[in-house]
């Protein structure tokens, strides 16, 4: 209790810690999970791709070109005769003896690759027109192409398609989580707060929803989305379908927290202090499980991403011309095709990386969420 030497750095630190609020304590604990922090950065990177997809894309991802069908990835050569000069080789299109199309790189024809290159025009935040891209080939000569990850059957650049797919796949998760969070917190909160018949009813509904097998339910609902709906309509329909099931888990967590908190002494004492019901909920109860809810939410996101991918993969989720990771993976359904054009499996990589990152991040967050847990 006595702290005489104000200069003592350890005491200084202890004093700072003593005056540290919940979020600072959480942040301190979270920082100790190195992996979680790294994953947080990865997630940030993913969402910057979502925000500036056009910047990261090399070419328009929607325009098909029969001439460029199924070109293998072009490797970037960073040095030319020891000097820094990133370039790719031009691909030459030939038919072999079996009349099969083959592409061979021509080391003689070098195409210069540059960063912040000019390309197709787009609008930053939908407002400011620009034609800068992270990477591109100098000049828009038809013969000069850059296919970092090859092309698909219709001759579209897979890298650019994956960049745009990120936008759809990761926002479906966000919107879905928001939906199920709203539903879950609302119903879970009502259930935990009022108890009695209301609680019983909501619990029964949750029980029933959970006992319906998830994937057939999704498939049924997704199959029910009319074929003639627009891309946007389908997008929202799928989002709603995915969040239909996951809200139950959130509702369960919120209810449990409410019930447990109601019995806590500091909540009782807030009531005795004369706090109104609203103040007890929003000034005392919500802050004490908010961090936990955030962590659970982070762990729900990857489930959403996987669900969308799975549904689209089956052809029941987003449909072309919409682009998502699942839609891209549809092209890889046929093993024989994949055996010849293995780069079509690339879209699996961002799925796995994103889901892993979300999981590690959420796990670290959950561990740090309650800095007051008495071990």
């Amino acid at each position: 209790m006595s702290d005489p030497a104000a200069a003592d750095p350890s005491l200084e630190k202890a004093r700072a810690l003593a005056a540290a609020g919940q979020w600072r304590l959480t942040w301190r604990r979270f920082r100790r999970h190195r992996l979680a922090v790294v994953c947080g950065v990865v997630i940030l990177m993913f969402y910057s791709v979502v925000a500036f997809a056009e910047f990261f894309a090399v070419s328009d991802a929607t325009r098909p070109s029969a001439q460029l069908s199924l070109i293998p990835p072009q490797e970037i050569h960073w040095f030319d005769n020891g000097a820094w000069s990133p370039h790719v080789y031009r691909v030459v299109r030939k038919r072999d003896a079996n009349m099969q199309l083959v592409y061979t790189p021509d080391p003689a024809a070098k195409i210069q690759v540059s960063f912040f290159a000019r390309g197709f025009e787009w609008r930053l935040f939908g407002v400011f027109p620009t034609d800068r891209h992270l990477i591109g080939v100098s000049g828009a000569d038809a013969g000069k192409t850059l296919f970092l990850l090859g092309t698909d059957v219709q001759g579209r650049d897979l890298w650019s398609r994956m960049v745009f797919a990120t936008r759809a796949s990761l926002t479906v998760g966000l919107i879905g989580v928001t939906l199920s969070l709203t539903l879950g917190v609302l119903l879970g909160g009502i259930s935990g707060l009022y108890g009695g018949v209301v609680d019983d009813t909501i619990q029964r509904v949750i029980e029933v929803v959970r006992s319906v097998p998830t994937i057939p339910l999704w498939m049924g609902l997704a199959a029910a989305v009319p074929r003639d709906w627009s891309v946007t309509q389908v997008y929202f329909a799928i989002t709603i379908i995915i969040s239909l099931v996951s809200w139950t888990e959130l509702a369960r967590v919120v209810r449990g927290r409410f019930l447990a908190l109601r019995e806590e002494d500091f909540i009782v004492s807030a009531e005795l202090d004369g706090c109104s019901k609203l103040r007890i909920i929003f000034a005392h109860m919500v802050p004490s499980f908010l961090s936990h809810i955030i962590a659970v939410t982070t762990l729900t996101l990857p489930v959403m991403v996987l669900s969308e991918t799975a549904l689209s993969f089956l052809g029941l989720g987003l449909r072309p011309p919409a682009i998502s990771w699942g839609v891209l993976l549809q092209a890889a359904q046929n093993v024989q095709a994949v055996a010849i054009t293995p780069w079509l499996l690339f879209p699996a990589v961002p799925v796995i990386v994103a889901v892993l990152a979300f999981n590690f991040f959420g796990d670290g967050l959950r561990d740090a969420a309650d800095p007051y847990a008495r071990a």
Partner: protein
Amino acid sequence: MLPYLARRLMLAVMTCVFISIATFTIIQLPPGDYITSYVANMAASGSTMTNQEAEVLRRQYGLDEPMPVQYLRWMALVVQGDFGRSMEWNRPVYDVIGERMLLTFVVSAAAVLTTWLLALPIGIYTAVRQHSVADYVFTLLGFIGLAVPSFLIALVLMYLGFRYLGTSVGGLFSPAYAEAPWSWARVGDLAWHLPLPALILGLGSTAQVMRVMRANLLDELRKPYLVTALARGMPMWRAILKYPVRVALNPFVSTVGYILPYVVSGSVIVSLVLGLPTVGPVLFKSLVAQDLFLAGTIVLMLGVLTVVGTFLSDLLLIAIDPRIRLGGSR
């Protein structure tokens, strides 16, 4: 005890009814019906069908009646053990999915078994040796297992098999046995093909079960009763297996019942990729084609399986956990 069981049973039945209604509604949701898509398909392949012909077909399947009537009529059949006719296959539903159901069950059971055989020992080991290298390695693997959807694993394995072995690794039978009647040789062929799909299906839940087991056991390992047992002179591992592991396993017993239907429904996508002759591909096609009774039957069966499974596992839990059986502590 009895009133409780009766209550649970009634709830289970009610849930089943709800599921059947939900199923029926969902399948009917898209505009049009089976005949609409049938006509569209015929038009696509060049032939035509007049409206009168379509109406005749509709009447024949009872599709012209209001939905509640269709539902009740179907339920009346189901209760008698007749699941109706598949329009797409033009055969009784039972004939279409009979063998597939059995195979689905075999594959799923093998997957659950794989999960437990892998996950429980690893979970126990990583909990007891918390913070060891093995713990970190398995935790990392577990996370990766959680992150990679099983259909992607299936896809990659298929690709690798095709690329390096030159064969298709999918399916449950060699081509020679695919359509053959049941024989011991066919069972042997099945056993030969079973491990791969079982492993792929099992891996997904392995990560989850492992993590839950580890967390449960870590809680139990902190309880004083383990120290008491050690203070009696029990060897470490024997004490751990007899006391905390026994307690930590209880929650899994309660999942025994519903994990199977869960795996069955999860297997739908993997079955499609691997080309397994299970209900998965049939369900997919029937949903797309609005093959009402076929899809309805499959979803209903999965739902009922879940409900019955949950009920049975609750019973099992009561049987093995004296705290629940004998009225709980305060």
